[in-house]
């Protein structure tokens, strides 16, 4: 009943100029709130949800594009430059959105449940970590024993080349893993990919001997960043300095740059995904997902199609891995745990497997829940704990609250809850995938 009420309300306001006014109002209100209250999580949420009203309200395509460009390329960088915590959240959203879009091809389109997706992310990350750091010269030193002041193997600018190399190597890894595995169906495939994900992590953990490739559990650092064009910081400060209120440092500018990179990758992924989806390949993927036996009877080569899905998904994870290694300048096996795979899968399922806007929404929701809501709640509880506040009636002093009850530690609970609730109430996700409607001119007879 409530949902029908909202639907009715939405349909009433989603008309003519009203929809434009609401979208503009939402963006302006969000920007204003974030600008005046740069520390408020709520204000940030208002701004982020303006992407949703932009998506849902009926406006012209040109308006949508312009508004999206202004939001993504002007407002968000300014907001991020004013508060680097927001920038971090936004960057993480973009990274996870890209990963979720990549996994969406494997899980959403081709229906292959991949529980080890971050393995490919790790491949990309370690690829650049190895070549973009001193690690190459540390091959013969056990972790921690290498002399200081070793040279870097490749210059930072090789990063740009490695964006492409990362795509290729991760894609090839996808094919290599896929070849023996993709003959399996459903549950079996899920189990094997789960194992593979762990294998890659354990390899990263242990490949510090006999030759020190990964520096073991300590991880690799420092990893080079590409050189930024000299004028970038000055240009940003001269254009946006006034609005931001202070001059940004090169470090913040780097974060902005990596956000832009992630955005570019997302756009490429969306482009490729949409075009593939509506073609022989995409239809074959969906057919395989829907019914393997029927698909193969139509002449669709199962293994080849699954390999293609695996390789495309993996290559997107690979490029994001390269980006992650460069942006963090530090990576360790910890970053590629099973939980990460589950996290990305949660985003896909929450948003709607097979649905591009859904998956992006899922990535944003889960990341914000993780980084802002849970942590915000943690902070609040901590404040209570440090105060003398007491819950009346049961006489419970907040300071007796166990540290174990720190909401920030409940990430897994959150993932679990999301998965369970979605499967029960909305198995197709927040924004379910829709099939394209075709108009066919055919003389009726």
């Amino acid at each position, binding site marked *: 009943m409530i949902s029908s009420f909202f639907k009715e309300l939405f349909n009433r306001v989603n008309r003519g100029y009203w929809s434009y006014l609401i979208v503009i109002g939402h963006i302006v209100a969000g920007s204003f709130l974030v600008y005046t209250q740069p520390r408020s999580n709520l204000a940030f949420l208002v701004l982020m949800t303006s992407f949703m009203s932009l998506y849902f309200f009926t406006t012209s395509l040109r308006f949508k594009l312009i508004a999206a460009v202004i939001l993504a390329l002007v407002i968000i960088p300014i907001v991020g430059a004013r508060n680097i915590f927001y920038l971090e959240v936004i960057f993480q959203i973009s990274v996870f959105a890209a990963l979720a879009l990549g996994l969406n091809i494997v899980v959403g389109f081709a229906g292959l449940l991949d529980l080890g997706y971050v393995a490919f992310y790790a491949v990309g990350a370690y690829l650049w970590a190895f070549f973009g750091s001193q690690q190459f010269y540390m091959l013969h030193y056990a972790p921690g024993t290498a002399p200081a002041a070793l040279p870097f193997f490749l210059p930072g600018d090789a990063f740009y080349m490695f964006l492409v190399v990362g795509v290729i190597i991760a894609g090839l890894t996808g094919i290599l893993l896929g070849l023996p595995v993709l003959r399996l169906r459903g549950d079996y495939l899920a189990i094997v990919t789960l194992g593979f994900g762990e294998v890659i992590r354990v390899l990263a953990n242990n490949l510090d001997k006999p030759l020190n490739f990964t520096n073991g559990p300590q991880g690799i650092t420092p990893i080079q960043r590409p050189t930024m064009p000299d004028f970038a910081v000055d240009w940003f400060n001269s254009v946006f300095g006034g609005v931001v209120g202070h001059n940004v440092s090169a470090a913040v500018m780097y974060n902005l740059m990596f956000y832009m990179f992630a955005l570019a990758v997302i756009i490429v992924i969306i482009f490729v995904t949409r075009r593939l989806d509506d073609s022989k390949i995409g239809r074959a993927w*969906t057919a395989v997902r829907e019914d393997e036996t029927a698909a193969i009877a139509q*002449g669709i080569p199962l293994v080849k199609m699954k390999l293609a899905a695996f390789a495309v998904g993996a290559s997107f994870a690979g490029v994001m891995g390269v980006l992650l290694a460069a942006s963090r300048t530090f990576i360790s096996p910890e970053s590629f745990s099973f939980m990460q795979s589950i996290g990305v899968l949660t985003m896909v399922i929450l948003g709607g497997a097979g649905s591009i806007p859904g998956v992006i929404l899922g990535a944003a929701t889960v990341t914000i829940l993780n980084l802002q809501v849970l942590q915000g709640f943690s902070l609040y509880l901590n404040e209570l704990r440090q105060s003398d506040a007491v819950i009346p009636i049961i006489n419970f002093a907040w300071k007796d609250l166990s540290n174990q009850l720190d909401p920030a530690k409940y990430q897994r609970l959150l993932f679990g809850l999301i998965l369970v609730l979605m499967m029960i109430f909305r198995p197709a996700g927040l924004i379910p995938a829709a099939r394209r409607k*075709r108009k066919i001119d055919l003389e009726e007879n």
Partner: protein
Amino acid sequence: MALLEINNMTKVFGGLKAISDVTFSLEKGRIVSIIGPNGAGKTTFFNTLTGIYKPDGGTIKFNGKSLVGLRPDQIAACGIARTFQNIRLFPDMTVIENILVGMHIHFKQSPIQTLFRLPGFKKEEAEAEKKAARLMQYVGLKRVENELAKNLPYGAQRRLEIARALAAEPLLLLLDEPAAGMNPQETEDIIRLFRHIKTDLGITILLIEHDMRVVMNISEDICVMDYGEKIAEGTPQQIRANTRVIEAYLGRGAVAGQHEEKMQ
């Protein structure tokens, strides 16, 4: 030369001979039925023929080419299309997409053409769409192109499955109990459709069917299976009179008398 020539095909599951030593040949342009009691091995016969199961012995030659050892998709590409006993559509794809998937082996678009929407891609897609729409009309599906396959009524789903199979432009069409669950009117319509497919499109049809009205009405030849063996083959008249067939259906002792009802 026959379109399909099967010699001594055998398929064993554990200790059970699902198909034993079946020899069968099918001339081009004919409509032939395979009948037999439940568990006779009819569907296994189809599945072995289309490569879902690997035969344990014997040879299969289709259009001059051996099918033994080929994958199901390769066999489909040789020109064999099929429908399934318990309809297997792609439920969450639209009707037209289902048919487009059926055309998979005929698409020539390269990934580059696909990514950049080059003219070759657009032309191919537009032509395929038109052809799919024509196929929809041909099997009698009206104005449902954007409907999800799972939302169609049962009879329409059967028709869609046939349209999908026809989309591959096969030489041989295998139909597994196409009239199952249909009312007399629908059954009559579908018999007419099969006749059209044979005469208009020149496609050879091999069907498994339990409904004797369909079998006797449409088949030029009938092949009878029981316990994995071919026990009889001939025209509908011959099969009607064949004592082994009557035994297989009604048991020994029934031969003497009352088989007329069942067979008509």
